[in-house]
């Protein structure tokens, strides 16, 4: 099957919010084992795409195939269990659990004891070793016992990645993993994504063009819900329609890309 080359495929993926079409007939194909970036101006429909892929929203039209399997109508938790795990644009952690517990609650799922309301929580201690390893991998080992709400923002994003990795997903969807981070944190996350992408597929939304150029094998540009261009960075970044879409987009979007391009030079 030629299909196996692509881990994720959508056909005519469409989402309309009471008349307003946020995602419009998107055909997306993500090659297995690659880092694929989804970019586009603010409001282009990137997050909506993620919500459709993970079934947090039901598509108005179109199909989604993951590993050759139609997942269009599956429940979101079931999709996650298949190995397609997402992160969120705004950091998603469990604020009043410790950093270690955040990762552990992800590890816990596969143990099959998550419904065991009569067992002492101490049975979870055997997951601590693995949880710590995952935390070390994102430089959070020293924070294991801290309450998550007290972490600085960049650390929370790192914790989110560690939590996602705890599920050992075949494919990760990252929604702006470097958003709101300082320079150092960005570098750290880029290294981390590169490291974890070695044996999995990553689809990420990202506004920071340095990060996109640095990491991605393929880029899909979305504008007003539709695919505008696709290809490697060198190609896409010269595409006149892409440049136009960014310049023509709302103020915030163009400023953001503009500043990032300045940074790159």
């Amino acid at each position, binding site marked *: 099957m030629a299909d196996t080359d692509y881990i994720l495929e959508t056909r005519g993926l469409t989402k309309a919010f009471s008349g307003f079409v946020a995602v419009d007939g998107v055909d997306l194909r993500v090659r297995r084992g690659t880092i694929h970036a989804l970019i586009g101006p603010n409001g282009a429909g990137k997050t909506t795409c993620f919500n459709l892929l993970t079934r947090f929203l039901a598509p108005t039209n179109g199909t989604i195939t993951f590993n050759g399997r139609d997942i269009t109508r599956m429940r979101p*938790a079931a999709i996650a269990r298949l190995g397609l795990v997402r992160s969120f644009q705004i950091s*998603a952690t469990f604020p009043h659990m410790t950093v270690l517990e955040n990762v552990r609650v992800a590890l816990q799922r596969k143990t099959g004891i998550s419904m065991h*309301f*009569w067992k002492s929580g101490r049975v979870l201690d055997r997951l601590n070793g693995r949880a710590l390893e995952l935390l070390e991998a994102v430089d959070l080992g020293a924070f294991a016992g801290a309450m998550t709400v007290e972490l600085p923002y960049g650390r929370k994003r790192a914790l989110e990645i560690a*939590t996602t990795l705890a599920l050992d997903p075949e494919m990760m969807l990252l929604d702006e993993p470097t958003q709101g981070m300082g320079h150092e944190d960005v570098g750290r996350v880029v290294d981390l994504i590169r490291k974890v992408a070695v044996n999995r597929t990553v689809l990420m939304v990202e506004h920071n063009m340095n990060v996109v150029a640095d990491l991605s094998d393929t880029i899909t540009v979305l504008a007003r819900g539709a695919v505008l261009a696709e290809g490697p960075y060198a190609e896409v970044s010269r595409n006149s329609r892409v440049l136009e879409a960014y310049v023509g987009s709302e103020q915030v979007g163009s400023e953001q890309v503009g500043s990032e391009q300045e940074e790159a030079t």
Partner: protein
Amino acid sequence: MNGGHMYWGFAALIGFGLLAPVAGIYPTFLMKCWCFALFACAFNLLLGYTGLLSFGHAAFLSVAAYVAGHTIRNLGFGPEWGILAGTLSAGVLGYVFGSLAIRRAGIYFAMITLALAQMLYFVWLQMKFTGGEDGLQGVPRGMLFGLIDLSDNTNLYYLVFAIFLAGFFLIHRVIHSPFGQVLQAIRENEPRAISLGYDVDRYKLVVFVLSAALSGLAGATKTLVFQLASLTDAHWHMSGEVVLMTLLGGLGTVFGPVVGAFVIIGLQNQLADKVGSWVQVIMGIIFVICVLVFRRGIVGELGRLLKRPL
């Protein structure tokens, strides 16, 4: 999280429970308090530890009260069977209500539970065995396991206290179990819990059934104490009262609902003779004060002062 200070709290609770009747506090009043404390703890498991606001918990209290009363008085079983049957019936009803309500979030969830509980109220009103407005009266306390005479107030008191403790520690266990970890995750960030692969609706349903069954345990026990199951248990006031007890004592705290239940029942007891139906107004005012300036409740504020979760 579960520091040593908790054990002092448990010790104080047990000590108080054992000694209170000896110290001369009216045992029927105490038993009523323990029943409502268990009811509030069961409710807290749902609202405080899972984030689900049910506004129909009176349904579970009442179904268990009626079933226990019916089992003991009309069918002639011993008190232990009455309590068991009551608790189970509340669990089953919890499964039915939960299945219907859990797909809805927030205020819709609360409204559906309220609507279902109201429907049940009218069912009780119409049915023969409940005695309608008069209630199901004259439930004999009987002999526990055929051995212990429960018409003796002291015996009954220690049974009620033991039932409360069993429920209380079961809830504590649930909160700290692997299941409890998932509940906390759901409460703190439901979309994230879903994205980790948890079918959150199933977890919510299980905790809803647990909460309903434990509320039922409280209701069935209460029938034994008052030898009566009545419509008061099914009225929406009751659903509101348990919210008030939990909020006043401290939502999401271990001891809060117990304190809340004692304060509310105590106030009702003290005020009922003096101010009559004004008692409802006073409860309302307490509720408003609680929501406006006293968000954490009594135990929650105390915990903040001591910098420890209680």
